[in-house]
């Protein structure tokens, strides 16, 4: 007869424990604004290890520099800012755990985004569920925006799939006698790279540039020799590669080995990593390589010159050493600051509403967001010339003429 009693006691105790646990983990405040003048913590999941670790560290640099500047001028609407970073190891499952913990355990006031579309997609599902605004610097693939989330804001000038639009416009603007007739494409199957390449291919084909090779390869590929062989054997006038930095470097080295020199070469990422890229391929071999960019160190955008000098003072190096991730992260802080001033609040609901209206000034230039957080601007075409990246298209932003055809690799 004791068994039912003990079961009942166990049940009551369990229910009591659950109730206590529920009371203990009060839901975080996403709509309320912290008391004026109180310090706040902003939580970020960053990739300090794994595939995106290089980019993750650059994001931290950008975020830290913004927090330093923000606190120097009195804080975010009077709130002293502390950044809290947790490593997601470039993992799509860890990034979800991290944002859940930041919001429910650490009760951070705000959250900023991680690196890559791959991590932003699962992360934004969590932050949206808790009603947090999710300004993010690096998740701009189409799959980020097609889920109907209104709390996410991609803080770059253009959606990722439009990154190569400037390149295609430049190609199609060339006089008929110079215009390339054929193009070869090879891209990682990544939500950052493939949409860019696919859109460029559609635009160039519509403009009369024939596709002679198109290959998609798994992101975990380590041997790029056969991929480069296919591009080389197609012998196209222009080569368009959907790369991150390691494969961007590997392709260029394979082209050098095979003495292959296309008239134009554009890569979605890699050449935007400044001197790090130049060191890996050799500065002489960077000449003429193109990459889409929303930012470059000499851009005449608001506060950019100060950002560059502060970055060098804090982290060392030269303007060419600044990875594009850092100004992108810095811009996240800038748009949040302006939205907070506009809303007179740092409550997440107020920030979401404010970010959906008006234009925000950043080191990457002005930007505004549609109802799904897509930026409405355009990215630029940047080319390596004499050891530096310079904007070459569109003409309104260009400081140099595009080098075409591209000089041969030094071998």
């Amino acid at each position, binding site marked *: 007869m004791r068994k039912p009693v003990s079961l009942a006691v166990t049940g009551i105790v369990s229910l009591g424990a659950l109730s206590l646990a529920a009371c203990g983990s009060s839901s975080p405040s996403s709509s309320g604004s912290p008391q004026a003048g109180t310090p706040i913590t902003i939580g970020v999941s960053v990739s*300090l*290890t*794994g*595939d995106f*670790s*290089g980019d*993750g*560290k650059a994001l931290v640099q950008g975020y830290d520099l913004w927090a330093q500047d923000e606190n120097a001028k009195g804080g975010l609407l009077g709130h002293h800012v502390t950044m809290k970073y947790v490593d997601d190891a470039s993992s799509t499952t860890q990034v979800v755990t991290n944002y859940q913990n930041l919001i429910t355990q650490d009760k951070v006031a705000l959250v900023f985004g991680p690196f890559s579309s791959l991590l932003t997609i699962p992360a934004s599902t969590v932050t949206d569920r808790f009603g947090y605004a999710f300004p993010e610097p690096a998740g701009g693939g189409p799959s980020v925006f097609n889920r109907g989330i209104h709390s996410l804001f991609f803080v770059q000038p253009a959606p990722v799939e439009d990154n190569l639009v400037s390149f295609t416009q430049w190609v199609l603007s060339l006089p008929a006698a110079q215009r390339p007739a054929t193009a070869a494409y090879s891209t990682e*199957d990544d939500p950052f790279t493939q949409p860019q390449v696919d859109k460029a291919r559609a635009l160039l084909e519509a403009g009369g540039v024939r596709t002679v090779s198109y*290959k*998609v*390869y*798994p992101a*975990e*590929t*380590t*041997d790029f*020799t*056969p*991929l480069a*062989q*296919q591009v080389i*054997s197609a012998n196209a006038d222009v080569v368009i590669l959907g790369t991150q*930095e*390691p494969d961007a*470097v*590997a392709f260029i*080295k394979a082209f*050098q*080995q*095979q*003495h292959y020199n296309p008239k134009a070469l554009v890569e979605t990422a890699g050449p935007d990593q400044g001197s*790090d890229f130049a060191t*890996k391929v050799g500065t002489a071999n960077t000449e003429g390589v193109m990459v889409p960019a929303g930012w470059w160190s000499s851009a005449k955008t608001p506060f950019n010159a100060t950002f560059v000098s502060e970055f060098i003072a804090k982290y060392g190096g030269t303007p060419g050493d600044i990875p594009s991730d850092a100004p992108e992260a810095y811009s996240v802080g800038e748009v949040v600051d302006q939205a907070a001033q506009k809303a007179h609040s740092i409550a997440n609901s107020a920030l979401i509403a404010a970010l959906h209206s008006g234009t925000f000034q950043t080191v990457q230039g002005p930007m505004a967001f549609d109802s799904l957080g897509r930026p409405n601007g355009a990215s630029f075409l940047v080319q390596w010339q004499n050891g530096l990246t310079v904007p070459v298209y569109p003409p309104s932003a260009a400081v140099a003429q595009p080098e075409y055809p591209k000089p041969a690799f030094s*071998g």
Partner: protein
Amino acid sequence: MTLILEAVVFGILTGGVYALMASGLTLIFGVMRIINVGHGALVILGAYLSFALLRSANIDPFVSLVITMPAMFLIGVVLQVIFIRPLKDDREALSVLVTYAIALGIEGLLGYLFTNNFVQLNAWYETASFAVFGFHIAYVYLFGFGLCLAVLGAIFVLLYRTTFGSAVRATMLNRTAAQLVGVNVDRVSAIAFGIGVSTAAAGGVIFGMTNAFNPGSHYDLISRLLTIIVLGGLGSLRGAVIAAVAMLIIEDVTAVVISPVWASFAFFLLLVIVLVVRPQGLYGIRVRERI
């Protein structure tokens, strides 16, 4: 046709590098019956040691092997004595956990010392190439293949032409029986582990010259190396060499003829077929355990 020929040639050359890396792994399994899942991390450690010598003293990556291979041998012996030798019961299962912990430790240490940014070993022969059959082969692949032949040849001579090699092969065949006839199994195991780890240094140099790498690169690498030694037959050096070359040729040819997306699948298809026909792999020895 040139494209397929080129894929086959590069498959053989790159396969040699993987054979070199896998040879250490299969040797360690053969002698100690442990699965060293930290072998990929040791390859990356070898690449970083050469990277450090290149950056600090401008020592050519191939020349650096004169320093890194003995150093890695000593590291291997120390790891075996401290972490592997104490495992007496259920060695195969426990060794996976212990060597995984070693891999994580190496990854953490390398991340602390070198950051997690991708790096690559550079030398003039990395991009310099010569023409053959209508395409170009970079000297690094040729030198790398030569190094593979030299190291693998040395291991074969050691195993089949020396007294120590006889002791190693006796241990590989039957650990207990080897002990009974007077082989110092602990000593043989430590030296074999050291040799396996020093081959990782040689493999790491070529891997580091043909791939960008960071401390986390060992995860992809170990999965490929384990696949190679399973296909070749656990403990078989000859099997590891043939499986590595087969793997790279199949992947490279599939990538150029069909699609890079199907490259790994094509190899795994072969792996499954072989294991259905020969569960012990190409050159593995079928062991009947007493119940």
